[in-house]
């Protein structure tokens, strides 16, 4: 089975006065595992629902391998869907739940039983087919829901926060199982979650949605190293935002002596915000790149296992630094060299309205 590529173009959906999704364009590579990440109400579930055909978009189009699927009703889309709740049909046995889709397709009983048994084995629940639905644990229920979707060999697997009702240990286990099922079949997978850590752990690429629009799309690492937007940087926990100006490829902070010499692509001269992750800042570094080192004062330091959390003040600007625990000792009140490596800095222009 060859994997299917998904293309969303200008997708939009409005409920009443609220625009749930706006101008969403997104390319998901064949066989990719994408986390659709965002806070609740950002439109990620609506997007998933439009992919599944359960919600009709107001604008835009969805293509599977270049062919629009908008005209296909939900029941005929080559899509497997798993919700947050297992939604196992309580009037059917476990096996009949897994076989539901095949029965809808008119598959014979014997072929059904064979595939059900095989699928139950793949989700490590062999022999549970005759159980009633009420006799399963939460993790088992969600695995059955996964089996019920996958047994139909869909081209696309859509998951809407499938593990958020499970406890942490079980969640980790389920992610591993899902990852394995994906890697075995190369099925294009879209995984909706509000949990940034979960998205990073499970997916190859992350599409971040904020307030109904796409705020970033790339590998998990890129969201840490080179976020697409300031909003994406903030969602991924950036604490250090430095206001300033860019002129001639040089960033100069407004409230402090911080200045970074760097060739900043795509940033025009004018007001800008520089962001940098706490672990990227060097304290008292010997590496002396001219123009990136400045002097600050340590105002707080706290031991946090593998590193120290240090707050440094430079002028009116406070920076949060993760300093290696085994590195140079830091004392509160001392003046210290602060280095912002240009390659770790991301600068966003502030577009004046």
């Amino acid at each position, binding site marked *: 089975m060859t994997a299917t590529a998904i293309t969303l173009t200008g997708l939009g959906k409005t409920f009443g006065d609220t625009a749930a999704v706006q101008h969403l364009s997104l390319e998901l590579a064949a066989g990719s595992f994408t986390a659709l990440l965002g806070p609740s109400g950002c439109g990620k579930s609506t997007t998933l629902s439009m992919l*599944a*055909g*359960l919600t009709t978009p107001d604008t835009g189009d969805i293509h599977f391998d270049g062919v629009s699927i908008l005209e296909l*009703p*939900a*029941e*005929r*889309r080559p*899509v*497997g*869907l798993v*919700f947050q*709740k297992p*939604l196992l*049909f*309580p*009037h059917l046995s476990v096996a009949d739940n897994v076989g*539901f*889709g095949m*029965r*809808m*397709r008119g598959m014979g009983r014997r072929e059904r039983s064979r595939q059900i048994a095989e699928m139950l084995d793949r989700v490590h629940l062999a022999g549970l087919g005759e159980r*009633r639905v*009420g006799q399963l644990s939460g993790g088992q229920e969600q695995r059955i829901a996964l089996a*019920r*979707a996958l047994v*139909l060999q869909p081209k696309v697997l859509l998951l809407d926060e499938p593990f958020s009702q499970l406890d942490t240990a079980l969640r980790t286990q389920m992610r591993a199982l899902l990852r394995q099922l994906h890697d075995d079949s190369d099925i294009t997978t879209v995984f909706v979650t509000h949990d940034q850590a979960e998205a990073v752990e499970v997916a190859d690429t992350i599409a971040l949605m904020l307030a109904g629009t796409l705020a970033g799309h790339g590998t998990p690492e890129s969201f840490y190293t080179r976020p697409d937007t300031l909003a994406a940087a903030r969602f991924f926990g950036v604490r250090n935002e430095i206001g300033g100006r860019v002129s001639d490829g040089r960033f100069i902070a407004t409230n402090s002596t911080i200045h970074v010499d760097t060739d900043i692509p795509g940033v025009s001269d004018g007001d800008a915000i520089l962001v940098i992750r706490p672990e990227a800042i060097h304290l008292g570094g010997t590496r002396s790149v001219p123009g990136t080192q400045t002097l600050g004062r340590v105002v707080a330091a706290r031991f946090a296992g593998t590193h120290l959390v240090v707050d440094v003040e430079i002028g009116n600007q406070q920076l949060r630094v993760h300093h290696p625990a085994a590195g140079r000792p830091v004392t509160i009140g001392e003046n210290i060299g602060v280095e912002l490596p240009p390659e770790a800095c991301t600068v966003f222009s502030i577009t004046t309205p």
Partner: protein
Amino acid sequence: MTSSAVTSSGVVGSPGTVGRRLGVAVLIAGALLPLVPLLVWAFAGQWRYPALTPQQLSLRGIGLLTDPRSQIPQALLTSTLIATTVAALAVLIGYPAGRAVGLYRFRGRRAVQFLLLAPVIVPGLAAAVGLQVFFIRYHLADSATGVVLVQLIPTVPYAAIVLAAAFANLDTDYERQARALGAGSLRVLLFVTLPLMRPALLLAGLFAFLISWSEYVLTLLIGGGQVTTLPLLLFAAISSSDTTAAAALSLLIIGPPLLLILASTRLLSTRSGAVIGMGRL
């Protein structure tokens, strides 16, 4: 998880068992004691004041039940057919109404809710007297069809209300999930929604059946004496002071509803009901 009191009283050794058993006994006695005089009357041949027990026992009352000349066997059949048809139609009509009111938020939902309840609040007799004109005009008077139609007035609201309550508890994501698994609208209904709604459907049907089964005024008015149901015979027996026949008929009328309720407590407390809240009688 059965909701029947008999099972819960069977818990041995748990605290409060004695009190609970006593409570159940009182309930059962309260429900069955009024039937005792009926039983005695049904077998009484001669029973005059001031005797405490009948002076003579007789099987005349019970014999009437199977005697074609008493019209009772035919009436039993008529009553059963009418009540079953009314129950089926009431559920069929109440289903979309219940779904709309229970599941969807729309403008005028309160008004629809009130209109659904109106036939329960307004006496059926008042409506039926007005409707009789139309029944006569459309040749529906004096026929079983007419009786079935007029009995929908008091039964549809109950069916709709019971189903609305159940639909309010229905998680429609089950239907969405079924669609995603390849089921079209009809199959979603047949394979998912109706099974999930089964307890409520049974309950709605049961209510409608019971209302139709004991309906007197509407049957008399629209049936015009041509459609003879058991309640009509019962009133006839009472007005002719044939207490023995009345008691025997009463027992016959009580029988099917009692059996239905006993059977349904088991059916309604099903383990598979996703729609709870209406699963207990």
